[in-house]
């Protein structure tokens, strides 16, 4: 099943770690908040995506199966 990245915008404080750990799918806007590729995470990037999720200092990034 497809997995998607989603950020909790209330928790996100714009640390930017996610964009460093997964530049293929996450960039930062002009205020430092993540812009996330809405497409499913390709299997080849899943390990990096998990690292970005666990690397968020406030645990605002999630990797979800879309229901």
């Amino acid at each position, binding site marked *: 099943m497809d997995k998607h990245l989603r950020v909790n*915008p209330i928790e996100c404080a714009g640390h930017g770690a996610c964009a460093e750990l997964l530049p293929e799918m996450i960039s930062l806007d*002009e205020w*430092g*908040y993540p*812009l996330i590729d809405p497409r499913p995470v390709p299997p080849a990037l899943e390990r990096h995506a998990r690292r970005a999720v666990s690397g968020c200092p406030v645990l605002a990034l999630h990797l979800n199966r879309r229901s």
Partner: protein
Amino acid sequence: MPLRRSESTSPGIRPEGLPRLLPADTTVPDGLHEHLARHGFLRYRDGRLHLAAELRAAGLTGRGGAAFPVHRKIEAVADAGGQPFAVANGAESEPAASKDATLLWLAPHLVLDGLQLAAEAVGAQEACLYVHNTQGVRLESALQRALAERWSARIDRVPVRLAWAPPRFLAGQETAMVNLLNGGLALPTFTPPRVFERGVGGAPTLVQNVETLAHIALIARYGARWFRAIGTPAEPGSMLATVRHGDGTVRIVEAAVGTPLRSLLADDLAADAAVGRAQAILAGGYHGTWLAAPDAAGLTLDNAALKAAGASVGAGVLAALPASHCGLAETARVVRYLALESAGQCGPCLNGLPRIAAGLSTLAGLRPGPRVRRDIERWAGLVTGRGACTHPDGSMRFVRSALQVFAAELRHHERGACSASARQPFLPLPPGTPVSDEDWS
């Protein structure tokens, strides 16, 4: 004192035509006896979900703004398991709207009937009426009296408590309301969980707008066929609208869904109108959409028609901006208010809205630089779809439609002129804008 059976079971007079919700003959609120004389006794269904089929047949959708099918929400809450909770949402946050406050004032028992029926339909044992406290002591004591009257007449099966929303634009958002009722601040939260899964006290929670509940109370009495006798096949029934005319008068109108805007705003949209003719219509409220007057004149008050024009019924606001006022100045003023009303929880909204508001006030002035409009459009893109609640998306819908509808006026401003003659603001804003954290409780 309980009502005697003979008093309470009179069938009521089935209202033909309009109005259905608001008493036509009076501006004095209906007490319980007047209410029962008008509509007859409350028709409980004696069981969970029994009302849902009738509501599905009626095709009733939520009147709070999102127009979600009512029976589906009821089914979702009833099926979520556990002991559900029911809330009547009367926190009408749109400063340009006052239809819910009017309904609560004139026909509180219709709303409270609907709340009982909705609570029964989901199997809730407790309910709450959530209302803005900006309307003063008068409404507060009237609602308390209505609840007390019902309790002593033993009409209510489920106890209802009153809860007061802080005077903030976002206090009516479902998740903010649940947060407040759970002892927190009236700030929106991230979903999931949705409130129908986990809401007040962690229970599956049914939230329905007060007008929606009043329709439920009538459908339970008169049936789906009666409800569908007016409106469009896709969007049956009637709706309350707050109609703000160009001359400054405000009317609360109950209209069949699908009524031509031309008949609701006759003087404002008339081709031969001399004074006060509208240049644009704001549909839906401050999370809504500006429509150029010639476009609006061909539309009807239903989501199918308005959607084709990029708008929606939203909170039931129709405001006719007269040609004497500057649409850019009006928009800038409202967006500044919306920026101050951001909960400030999500980065894009916190950063984007004040910049967009500042950009718009530059456009509202004379000879704005060429970059300002492009900046606003870029920021609008960065804000949209990136908040926990609907505030950024709704605010950007308003901004984008203004840039389109007032494009000619913007070219005037770029050349150093403004076509407006009036300097008094047209669209209403609440007096003062609170800014401290305590204002969210």
